[in-house]
């Protein structure tokens, strides 16, 4: 019947198996997916979970939450100290590693290895470009762009224009590089370049490396879709034992705490936004209601599945974000933004070597407090986002994959930062409006929108976007955690993924009410360090894996 291999992917996501999808070089392993799984009946629900990853992940998470709630005064300085120690002492390691990822991605795009197709030579893409992009952004970056799009450019602009300040030979200012004391134009340029640096090639290269490694080892090599598979070329059969359990548990830990703490902080920010816009009460009660609402929608979304839930919501989000971006471009300083796009892109390229230099930095506050922190943060999110990207990227060639996960999102980030940050800087520089500068972080976006017409409508769109971006992170995160804790099975019973979505919401509420969001977020960011090592080994595994594939 419908067996033509050149057919377009069925929009329903359901396809009759075509003729062979072309040769791949599977890895011969004695491991069968699900061999360590246990099937349980809990009440009316059947579960199919990995033993012991599911149990250890769940218990570790509960233990950390309880400990944090019980001893938060001593735990918070400890975790924050750990994070600060890592980002300040090992800043060179984070910066250097991130450069390696970017360079590897660029080399792979240009090299003949770029011709390898994920899923076999004749495989067809699972998703259209639109659905794919929507999911890339919704899972990985959307929420950050909403919060930092306005605030980060202003921050760097302000510190840059303040210039260098030092005390006893140590720089106390937060300006990027040498700053641009008193020079408005140069400070704006440097501020935009520094912001874009944190949101363009480097973060996406981090995600791309994890995603590419997983997709390659899963679709082409036949290993389970779980983080430990990346390590097969390094550890061999040992990845199916405790070595692998530890990696998977760490991935679940980073993902769950990353999601739960940003959900908790997000609820605080969204609640402040709602109070600012509509005068709603900004209380613990309203934050809990927000978390419950976000978790509730995420629950419906994961129960509906990848296509009917996650993808559809991501597409809604992308349309809303595009509308908001289009509005800011058209109603804001249009020519400034359009011209600014190219100027900022150029400023980014010009400052890139200095900003990404891992050694001999004089701007320690900036390179450690901002850049190394960001890299650790992106890397701690990479098991989640990378695995989700891998899940939806089958059928693309390596070149197409890297272009679409690295280059295009980077350009979108440049445009977004130019529109939101550029408009805000313009309000300060040429119109003397300092409301945005003075507003707290969570309100900066709305203050900036107040400087433009139709404030009520755009702010409402903004707040909806913030909330839906949380939903799309929460539902895709639950899918990822479920797959890891089911030993790489993507078709484990649906109640399991619903469990993780609920669990995440409950942790967010517990930490919000009991305190400890900051402590556990610091802990989650600290997992960026072990995962940096994971990713570096992943680079080696990718090259080795790609070399053995038919091109």
């Amino acid at each position, binding site marked *: 019947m419908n067996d033509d291999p050149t057919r377009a992917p069925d929009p329903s996501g359901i396809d009759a198996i075509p003729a062979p999808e072309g040769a791949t070089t599977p890895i011969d392993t004695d491991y069968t997916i699900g061999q360590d799984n246990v099937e349980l009946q809990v009440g009316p629900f059947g579960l199919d979970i990995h033993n012991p990853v599911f149990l250890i992940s769940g218990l570790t998470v509960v233990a950390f939450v309880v400990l944090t709630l019980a001893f938060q005064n001593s735990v918070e300085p400890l975790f924050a100290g750990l994070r600060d120690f890592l980002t300040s002492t090992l800043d060179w390691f984070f910066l250097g590693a991130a450069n390696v990822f970017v360079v590897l991605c660029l080399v792979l795009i240009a090299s003949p290895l770029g011709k390898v197709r994920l899923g076999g030579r004749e495989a067809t893409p699972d998703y259209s470009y639109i659905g794919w992009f929507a999911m890339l952004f919704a899972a990985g970056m959307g929420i950050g762009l909403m919060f930092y799009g306005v605030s980060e450019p202003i921050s760097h602009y302000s510190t840059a224009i303040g210039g260098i300040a030092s005390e006893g030979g140590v720089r106390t200012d937060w300006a990027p590089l040498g700053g641009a004391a008193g020079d408005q134009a140069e400070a704006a340029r440097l501020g935009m370049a520094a912001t874009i640096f944190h949101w363009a090639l480097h973060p996406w290269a981090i995600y791309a490396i994890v995603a590419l490694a997983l997709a390659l080892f899963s679709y082409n090599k036949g290993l389970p879709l779980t983080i430990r598979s990346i390590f097969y070329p390094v550890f061999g059969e040992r990845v199916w034992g405790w070595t692998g359990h530890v990696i998977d548990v760490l991935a679940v830990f980073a993902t769950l705490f990353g999601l739960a703490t940003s959900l908790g902080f997000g609820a605080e920010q969204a609640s402040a936004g709602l109070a600012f816009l509509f005068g709603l009460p900004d209380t613990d009660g309203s934050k809990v209601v927000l978390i419950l609402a976000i978790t509730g929608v995420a629950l419906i979304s994961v129960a509906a599945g990848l296509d009917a839930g996650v993808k559809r919501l991501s597409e809604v989000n992308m349309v809303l974000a595009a509308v908001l971006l289009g509005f800011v471009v058209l109603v804001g300083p249009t020519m400034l933004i359009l011209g600014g796009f190219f100027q900022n892109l150029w400023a980014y390229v010009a400052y890139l070597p200095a900003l990404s230099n891992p050694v001999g930095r004089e701007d320690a506050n900036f390179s450690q407090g901002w850049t190394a922190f960001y890299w650790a943060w992106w890397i701690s999110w990479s098991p989640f986002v990378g695995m989700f990207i891998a899940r939806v990227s*089958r059928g693309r060639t390596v070149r197409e994959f890297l272009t679409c996960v690295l280059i295009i999102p980077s350009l979108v980030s440049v445009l977004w930062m130019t529109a939101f940050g550029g408009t805000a800087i313009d309000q300060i520089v040429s119109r003397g409006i300092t409301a945005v500068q003075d507003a707290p972080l969570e309100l900066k976006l709305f203050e900036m929108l107040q400087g433009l017409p139709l404030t009520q409508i755009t702010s409402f769109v903004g707040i909806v976007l913030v909330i839906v971006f949380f939903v799309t992170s929460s539902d895709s995160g639950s899918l990822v955690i479920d797959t890891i804790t089911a030993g790489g099975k*993507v078709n484990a019973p*649906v109640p399991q993924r*619903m469990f993780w979505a609920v669990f995440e919401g409950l942790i967010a509420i517990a930490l919000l009410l009991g305190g400890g969001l900051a402590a556990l977020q610091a802990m989650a960011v600290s997992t960026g360090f072990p995962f940096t090592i994971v990713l570096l080994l992943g680079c080696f595994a990718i090259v080795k894996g790609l070399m053995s594939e038919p091109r």
Partner: protein
Amino acid sequence: MYSKILTPVDLAHRERLAKAVDTAVDLARHWGIPVVLVGVTEAAPSAVARNPQEYARELAAVAEETARATGVAVEARTYTAHDPATQIDDTILKAVADTGADLVVMASHAPTVGDALVPSHGGRLASHAAISVFLVR
């Protein structure tokens, strides 16, 4: 009375497969009609196979074996879905349309309170399909 029976099978749970397949084959023999075994798999490696092609070969082997043992014409069709856990019903409906089957014989667990949250596939299918559905408990 019927012209073709469609039976969804889950190769990951072969032990639960026998009753539904036996029922389908007996009915098929009674009316002298063919059976289509339908499998749904994901693109990612699963417990059954490393890729969809391997899954399709496994299912074809089961169909062939059943045909040889029973003398009934048994055909296999494998589908991939992005998220099989939530797309089984839609896949079966698509397979019904593709194959022109007019009776579905499938295994389904006895109703539980959990169905309120996650409905059983057989139950949902029966309420969405225009053709007859025979649920084997």
